[in-house]
């Protein structure tokens, strides 16, 4: 019975991590949809989100309901700026130039913010916004932090779904990811929609950053690298460009990471995830929900 309780606990932990990955993966998948770009800087937008929340909570002592919108605004603005300054001049450049620029933006954000006069490269303790309470339902245990992560993630997924499938902006976004040229001929403002996609993606990454800080209260300027790469893998796993694919991929990656740490060895967890990536890329590069395998 103990094993069963342990298993349940690990599932909840895995879903908690997976929810954060899903939020980041959404940004990757949307940007890939409209621009065919792996936005390497996305993991660093997530990091900026965590740091903004840290400053708002511990330095300015803002109430928690203000922290969310303010942090998301900051990261959304950052996403907007990154696209305007770094990616827009390269709109017609080869794909790889864009990818290298994204790596450059990512390195710049990390090393610029890690200057000792700014955020410093040290680990910082993220303050708990509220005390941790555990609820027990028989064998099942869940903390209020996990509950809030699940509810906030589900809520934002619902809003995102409405945005993408029920509004004109979402329709334009989907049209762009289908065929940019035709969409622009049909009167879709391409630049505006690309900016909009970056803003939405970056806001979700900011949200992921806050929730990550709640769950794993140690933050650092380089914290975005691995979650960023893993979330991208989650997006590939679910089928890049597909919204519900990113969510499912995030949950799978989160669960497998936690399970490998719990039952095998925590040093092997990154290895297992990249092994999963290999298998996916070799067997079905279009991902779980991807329909046709065309050129990748």
């Amino acid at each position: 019975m103990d094993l069963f309780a342990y298993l349940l606990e690990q599932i909840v932990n895995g879903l908690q991590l997976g929810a954060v990955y899903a939020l980041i993966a959404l940004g990757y998948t949307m940007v890939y949809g409209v621009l065919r770009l792996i936005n390497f800087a996305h993991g660093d937008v997530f990091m900026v989100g965590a740091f903004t929340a840290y400053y708002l909570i511990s330095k300015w002592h803002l109430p928690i309901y203000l922290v969310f919108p303010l942090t998301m605004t900051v990261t959304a603005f950052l996403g907007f700026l990154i696209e305007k300054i770094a990616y827009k001049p390269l709109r017609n450049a080869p794909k790889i130039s864009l990818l290298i620029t994204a790596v450059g933006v990512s390195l710049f954000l990390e090393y610029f913010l890690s200057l000792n006069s700014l955020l410093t490269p040290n680990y910082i303790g993220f303050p708990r916004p509220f005390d941790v309470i555990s609820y027990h339902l028989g064998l099942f245990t869940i903390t209020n932090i996990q509950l809030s992560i699940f509810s906030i993630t589900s809520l934002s997924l619902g809003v995102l779904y409405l945005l993408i499938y029920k509004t004109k902006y979402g329709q334009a976004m989907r049209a762009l990811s289908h065929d940019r040229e035709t969409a622009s001929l049909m009167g879709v403002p391409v630049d505006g929609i690309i900016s909009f996609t970056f803003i939405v993606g970056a806001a979700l990454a900011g949200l992921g950053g806050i929730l990550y800080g709640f769950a794993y209260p140690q933050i650092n300027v380089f914290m975005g690298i691995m979650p960023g790469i893993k979330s991208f893998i989650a997006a590939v796993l679910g089928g890049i460009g597909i919204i519900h694919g990113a969510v499912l991929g995030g949950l799978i990656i989160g669960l497998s990471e936690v399970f490998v740490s719990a039952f095998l060895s925590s040093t092997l967890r990154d290895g297992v995830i990249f092994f999963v990536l290999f298998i996916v890329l070799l067997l079905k590069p279009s991902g779980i929900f991807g329909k046709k395998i065309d050129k990748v």
Partner: protein
Amino acid sequence: MNFLTGAKRFLLSSLLVYLFLKIFFISGLFSEYVQQIILLAFIVILTSLGLNVIYGYTGQFSLGHAGFYGIGAYTAAYLGTVFQVEGLLGFWPILFLGGAVAGLLGYIIGVPILKLRDDFLAIATLGFGILIRVLLDNSDKVSELLGGSRGFIGIPKIVNLETAFWVMVFLILVTRNLIFSRFGLFWQCIKDDELAAGVFGINTAGLKLMAFTYGCFLAGIGGALYAYLYTFLHPSNFDFLKSIDFLIIVIVGGMGSITGTLYAGLLWVAVIEGLRIVLPAQMLELRWVFIPILLIGVMMWKPLGLLSRKESNLLGLGERG
């Protein structure tokens, strides 16, 4: 004939550079540290040249180059320790095996992975690089000697000016000849238009694999030299950020240019290691703020790098010699 004249001129200019360096090394004008970073520059150039063959000439984007560099280093260090190699004579087979194992691994990985294109290839090679890092971190579970996350210690220092410099010169010459051979021409065709190259009857899959294997071989040789220069290996020396280093050198120097890689590699080591001597510590952290800006700037103004497909005739690397 011009081709051979070029090789002669390259060897001649190498000899001049060598004599020049040798005088400085013997006279003691260079401290131990400066000597070490000069040798490191040769290793970095060699390894970057491998990436230039893979990416610059053949157009196969790889973000996992440091993984192969690490495999070469660990293979050579392990074999050297097992067979108790202490002198130069035993070092040569070890050096070759370090390169060969990295090349073989590149071949095995390349077969499935090179079917992918552009950004998917990038993410797959990136994943492979991280996988190598994880395996190196856990290597002490296989053999206590490898050290795992504590690092590999007790490698004798064998690499000196002669070894590092002439190995680099020899392999640059080999690479140059390969580039000017029909294989090099095929590689560049694949980079320019893979579909068209295939239509003309070029075995694109095989040649991509050949370029990848050869590039990984060079990385392995570089790694093996590194192991016997620094005498200590740690998995963190071979992680994702190290792959980015080589990528920056290839891109800034110019895709498809040996000369570009040569100059950019020298410049890179001067900036990363050399500035440590000159600048105070608080200024040093600024290096990594400007490097990404430089990278983005190069992408915007010269997307193919500064010396793309140009070679120095002065050094004898050009086709005309």
